[in-house]
């Protein structure tokens, strides 16, 4: 069955330091991959997505992610974290047909930013 694993439940990073959030997926075909962010009291917002082509994808707010098929991974990175990046981050794989795409989410990683 399709699944998404985010191994880190909670990460704390100093402001200005680099960030990497891990995501591993289990899916039989080429996956559609997504990262969403959920800030306190806010809805889920799409950071970036990978469908095909260049395995390094750029997103909003300075985030990027790299698809590595050999490792079944889609890790999210940011070179310099800002305090406003504190939020919960969800990796998802899309189960798609022509009608739509059901997103299968990981359990999420909570990011805290220390000053």
């Amino acid at each position, binding site marked *: 069955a399709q699944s998404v694993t985010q191994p880190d439940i909670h990460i704390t990073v100093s402001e200005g330091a680099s960030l990497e959030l891990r995501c591993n997926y289990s899916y039989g075909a080429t996956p*559609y991959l997504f990262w*969403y962010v959920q800030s306190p009291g*806010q*809805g*889920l*917002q*799409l950071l970036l*997505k990978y*469908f095909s082509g260049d395995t390094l994808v750029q997103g909003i707010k300075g985030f990027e992610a790299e698809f590595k098929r050999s490792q079944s991974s889609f890790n999210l990175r940011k070179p310099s974290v800002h305090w406003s990046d504190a939020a919960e981050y*969800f990796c*998802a794989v*899309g189960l*798609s*047909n*022509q*009608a*739509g*795409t*059901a*997103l*299968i*989410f*990981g*359990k*999420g990683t909570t990011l805290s930013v220390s000053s």
Partner: protein
Amino acid sequence: GAGVSQSPSNKVTEKGKDVELRCDPISGHTALYWYRQSLGQGLEFLIYFQGNSAPDKSGLPSDRFSAERTGGSVSTLTIQRTQQEDSAVYLCASSLGGGVGTQYFGPGTRLLVL
């Protein structure tokens, strides 16, 4: 423009009662999704609608859950005979088309079953 809206924002009900949750998608979006976010299960897909196609109900946890979409726009998720384990935040999302269109999420309805 206006995003996805959901009502009510909070709902408290007693075990055994029926509840209806409403979602207004972004105007012009043909695909509409329902998800559930709970502490124990995380974010789970429930159901989606795309145009006039039959909905994909594969994520509905039991036959107490149903959803409809009237006129290709507003959707209502109904939970009959609510149980305490139904307590969660119910999220709605819409996308411009089917396939892998970006899903835009609403703020959710927080349901508490006492």
